């Protein structure tokens, strides 16, 4: 930190001061907690849709088919298969999106509160998310879910940030 005006000056020299301020405001908005949560939700939704599509295609590839389903024409079977794939991938997408949003939102809030950046943020966010997801199944399941999700997110974060 030798020069006080160092840093981002390189790319922005061609713009007027108002444009630089606008760019800075946009970049600040993109780093806010709400936008991060929304983006994580959208990404989770997309990944869940792809996952659901992948998993639901297994049901129609195996030998376990309904009796009355076989009697219908091929076109009707395909339509039925597509509708089933759609509903299943939609439900998985919603689940993944919800999990992603809760995790990203809680991690951003915890990091903003602590004003520090280390591994404890992801552990706490994972514990919160796991506990929230398993809240309906009783306190023991909540504890287990919180511990498992926290350990998982700690492992992933440690792996991504090791040097």
């Amino acid at each position, binding site marked *: 930190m030798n020069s006080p005006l160092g840093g981002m000056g390189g790319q922005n020299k061609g713009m007027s001061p108002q444009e630089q301020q606008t760019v800075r405001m946009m970049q600040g908005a993109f780093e806010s907690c709400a936008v991060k949560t929304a983006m994580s939700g959208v990404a989770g939704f997309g990944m869940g849709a792809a996952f659901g599509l992948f998993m639901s295609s297994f049901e129609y590839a195996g030998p376990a088919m309904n009796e009355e389903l076989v009697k219908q024409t091929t076109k009707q079977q395909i339509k039925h298969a597509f509708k089933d794939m759609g509903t299943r991938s939609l439900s998985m997408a919603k689940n993944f999106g919800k999990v992603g949003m809760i995790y990203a939102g809680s991690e951003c809030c915890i990091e903003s509160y602590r004003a*520090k950046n280390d591994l404890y943020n992801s552990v706490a966010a994972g514990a919160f998310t796991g506990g929230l997801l398993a809240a309906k199944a009783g306190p023991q399941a909540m504890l287990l879910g919180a511990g498992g999700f926290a350990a998982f997110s700690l492992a992933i974060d440690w792996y991504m940030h090791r040097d």
Partner: protein
Amino acid sequence: MSSWGSFSQTYVNPEHLKQAEQQVDVFMGMFNRIMNACQDKCIPNHYHEPDLNKGEQKCIDRCVAKYMSIQTIMGERMKHMSPLAEPTNNNNNNNDSFSPDSL
């Protein structure tokens, strides 16, 4: 900023120039002190990425806000303690000599 291309020969009052230089010195001294203090407290030594992340941004916001509020409070106290001191610039100079130690 576009009119700074041609340096015209207008007369500049040396009084104003001296005052402007003093103000720049005071400001840069305060800026450097804030940067050193907040860098020690907020930014750890192992860098993973070039940009500030969320925790560091919040820490720097809080550090600068606390520094400025402490400086204002000290300014008020100094004003009461030495009524013969000159206003604004010299008060800021007196306050800057009491830079806070690392807690």
